């Protein structure tokens, strides 16, 4: 697509000025911004930013939830040839310092007081941060910080400037070329400093367009934007594809109202990481537990039908007339109302990505008639690499390479990608760029995987994490920690898992129970508990987890490649792994190395054959205070299974 984001926006404003571009729920009522209104807003913000001294190629930080005026700000920044750098709104202050200094950011536009407070603190380490604007003035009236102003003031200034320089904005937009840098996304980074992934208008729009054509997206789609805009997934779905297709993006009232807003909007195109689908399913199941017996019976009976018939129907296979009738009845009584309750009545295409999704979870949504599919991609590839076509959906693959993508698997099993949507570079980091982008233009994904017989890509783990078992019974076997952890996490009782085993004689694991699910389970058994730490140490709970671990082992033993990854010993951690304690990334991926070091005594206890181990851990609370939790953790041995060898 030979265009830029601001030009696309202006095209929509010209062709369909009164069509809705954005909606936001304000004071309980959905308010629409049309394309024409958006264009005017962008024009004013851009003029205001210009007057404030923003130049071409300047980097501008944008921090906040999905808010129409922040979207307009990103467009305004791009209109001036400057580069928006969205950062995670829930990050701690210290996490902003590196990106802001790395990108030499002088301007920041943030959502509200919370973000302003953080930016003011950041300024101590980033003196070049000159100007700061906020969207929501609440609580900020009496701030006298130099350089701080309301976005409203910027818009007013821009309006005045625009009145005296009417041709300025259009001339600026015309200057921008598709090959110019459009945005920079900082990857969360499991180790070291985050890296700024540089994308051009062309790379982002090429992929946005390819994805849209793959699923035949049009300008009538409705999307709910509720994930962090700093994450490229949300940015592609509610910004790049929004402008490429011209559909409507809806911004929820607040983070707590997302489920209500979802129901009200009824999106047609939906995207969520597996944990969101999991959360929704858990809430349904908990509510079903409390339902009357007739409802419960209906639900369970028809869910059995759905599991049997639904996926086949979804895949377009032929199904017997009796089953079809049963499914139709189920749709009337259960699936339809359930889809409605979840806000999925109108979903035509739903995607999940970012993490592996459990087969049961995945099948649940497909069986009740939601076209949930998986995709594969990353920040560096502008998301769209592989997608699952409508009738070829499998739980354990991520789909086929789409238009414009070439895939090759290197000898070490690493997946390599070539497409027009690859990153331009890592900002000011040629060494890192050279590491992932080779001279022939192949991007090294760092993921280990292979293409199956049907041409679908299957991802096993991060290539660098795939290790070897050394010594012991399964000497030399492949160890894929993520694969093992995911299998554990597919159990509703297990929230997080961390597997160790590379260069060791056996595999051991840490487990975090799901407080909600296990708490419920315990209440039903009249098992009293005082809190997470207490619940996690109950012998009954340990037994429950042991059953899960042994099921995983049985499952792994069926796969000759991965049978050596069976878990011999495990323990249930005394605290929940938390991003605030540095144990998870902001996208909730476990930082295995860091956890291994932090809990070295526990790892030693696992491998040293000890029965229990005392540990005390410092924790950081959300309000910034810190404290500590301590516990004596019991270590459990799990049964492993012999490899099921195929007959020679």
């Amino acid at each position, binding site marked *: 697509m030979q265009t830029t984001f601001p030009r696309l926006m202006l095209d929509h404003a010209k062709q369909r000025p009164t069509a809705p571009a954005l909606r936001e729920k304000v*004071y309980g*009522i959905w308010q629409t911004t049309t394309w024409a209104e958006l264009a005017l807003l962008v024009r004013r913000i851009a003029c205001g930013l210009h007057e404030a001294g923003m130049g071409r190629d300047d980097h501008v930080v944008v921090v906040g939830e999905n808010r129409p005026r922040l979207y307009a700000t990103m467009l305004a920044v791009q209109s001036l040839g400057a580069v928006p750098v969205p950062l995670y709104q829930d990050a701690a202050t210290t996490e902003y310092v590196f990106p802001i200094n790395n990108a030499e950011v002088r301007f920041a536009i943030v959502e509200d007081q919370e973000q302003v407070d953080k930016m003011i603190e950041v300024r101590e380490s980033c003196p070049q941060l000159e100007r700061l604007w906020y969207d929501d003035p*609440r*609580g900020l009236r*009496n701030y*006298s910080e130099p350089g701080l102003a309301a976005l409203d003031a910027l818009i007013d200034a821009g309006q005045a400037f625009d009145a005296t320089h009417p041709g300025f904005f259009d001339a600026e937009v015309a200057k921008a070329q598709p090959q110019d840098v459009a945005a920079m996304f900082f990857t969360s980074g499991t180790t070291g400093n985050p890296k700024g992934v540089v994308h051009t208008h062309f790379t982002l729009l090429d992929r946005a367009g390819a994805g849209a054509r793959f699923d035949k997206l049009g300008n009538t789609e409705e999307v709910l934007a509720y994930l962090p805009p700093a994450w490229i997934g949300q940015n592609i779905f509610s910004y790049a594809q929004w402008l490429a297709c011209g559909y409507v993006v809806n911004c929820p*009232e*607040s983070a707590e109202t997302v489920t209500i807003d979802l129901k009200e909007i009824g999106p047609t195109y939906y995207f969520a990481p597996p944990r969101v689908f999991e959360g929704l399913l858990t809430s349904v199941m908990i509510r079903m537990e409390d339902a009357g017996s007739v409802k419960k019976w209906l639900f369970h009976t028809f869910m059995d039908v759905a599991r049997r018939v639904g996926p086949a129907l979804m895949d377009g296979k032929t199904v017997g007339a009796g089953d079809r009738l049963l499914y139709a009845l189920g749709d009337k009584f259960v699936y339809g109302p359930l889809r409605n309750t979840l806000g999925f009545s109108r979903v035509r295409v739903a995607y999940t990505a970012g993490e592996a999704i459990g087969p049961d979870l995945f099948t649940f949504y497909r069986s009740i008639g939601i076209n949930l599919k998986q995709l594969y991609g990353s920040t560096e590839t502008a998301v769209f690499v592989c997608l699952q076509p409508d009738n070829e959906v499998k739980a354990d693959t991520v789909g086929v390479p789409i238009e414009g993508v070439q895939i090759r698997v290197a000898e070490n099993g690493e997946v390599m990608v070539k497409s027009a949507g690859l990153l331009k570079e890592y900002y000011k980091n040629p060494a890192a760029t050279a590491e992932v982008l080779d001279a022939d233009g192949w991007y090294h994904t760092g993921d280990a995987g292979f293409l199956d017989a049907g041409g679908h890509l299957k991802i096993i783990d991060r290539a660098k994490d795939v290790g070897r078992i050394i010594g012991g019974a399964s000497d030399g076997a492949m160890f894929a920690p993520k694969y093992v952890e995911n299998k554990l996490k597919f159990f509703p009782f297990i929230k997080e898992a961390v597997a160790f085993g590379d260069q060791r004689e056996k595999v051991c694991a840490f487990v975090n129970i799901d407080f909600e699910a296990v708490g419920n389970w315990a209440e039903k058994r009249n098992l009293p508990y005082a809190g997470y730490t207490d619940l996690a140490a109950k012998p009954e709970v340990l037994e429950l987890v042991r059953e899960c671990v042994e099921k995983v082992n049985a499952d792994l033993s069926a796969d000759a490649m991965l049978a050596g990854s069976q878990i011999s010993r495990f323990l249930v951690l005394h605290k929940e792994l938390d991003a605030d304690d540095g144990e998870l990334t902001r996208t909730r991926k476990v930082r295995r190395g860091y956890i291994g070091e932090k809990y070295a005594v526990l790892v030693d206890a696992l491998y040293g054959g000890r029965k229990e181990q005392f540990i005390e851990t410092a924790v950081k609370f959300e309000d910034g205070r810190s404290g500590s939790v301590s516990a004596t953790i019991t270590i459990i041995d799990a049964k492993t299974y012999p490899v099921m060898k195929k007959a020679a």
Partner: protein
Amino acid sequence: MAERKIGDVILEVKNISLRFGGVKALTDISFDVREHEVRAIIGPNGAGKSSMLNCINGVYAPQEGSITFRGQTFSNMNSRQVAEMGFARTFQNLALFKGMSVLDNIMTGRNLRMKTNIFQQAIRWGAAEREETEQREFVEKIIDFLEIQAHRKTPVGRLPYGLQKRVDLGRALAMEPKVLLLDEPMAGMNVEEKQDMSRFILDVNDEFGTTIVLIEHDMSVVMDLSDRVVVLDYGKKIGDGTPDEVRANPDVISAYLGTSH
């Protein structure tokens, strides 16, 4: 951070004594409240804090003394008259309508602002409908302010305690009070809820310029929130001043910590 503008004295309590039969609840209490300030009344259990608030609120009529609000002295006024003068309050033990939604509960706070009568409202046509729309808009602003959008339509009885307290505050705010009386706004809350509530109280004071009189026995909360503090013990005033002054006052220390004899 900026300085807030604290104005002149708007509420003056002079030599108040309140007796229930032979029990002296309050003896000769005097203090003043300035515009826009956060004024706390503290004291151990049974010190007479709630009685003091009830006097200002018009629930109790003190036998002696006077209360002057903006030059207007009131004695023997009932709660409705006091409310019409611009006072609103929250309750220590939450007097919310448990079966009604958050929205409806806060809407009741707009009652004094409604001009149409019950029959017009029952038909909900013309003036009554316009009025409801206007009032609803104001209520929505409060819901937004207190960040309870997700619970707009939830019956209050189903909400956790901390949120119910927030709804109680919302209903008081719906009256657009000049003076907000808070009776133990943090009672029974956990640390996080207390922090949220403190933030809302400061935001109300800052955003709407509302003068706030609050009763609290959690000292740490009071010291962080208030501009000036009155300390009561056994119905008598034993201290009055800024948090630092009060903290250093030997009478206050002995009332709270006991004295060694």
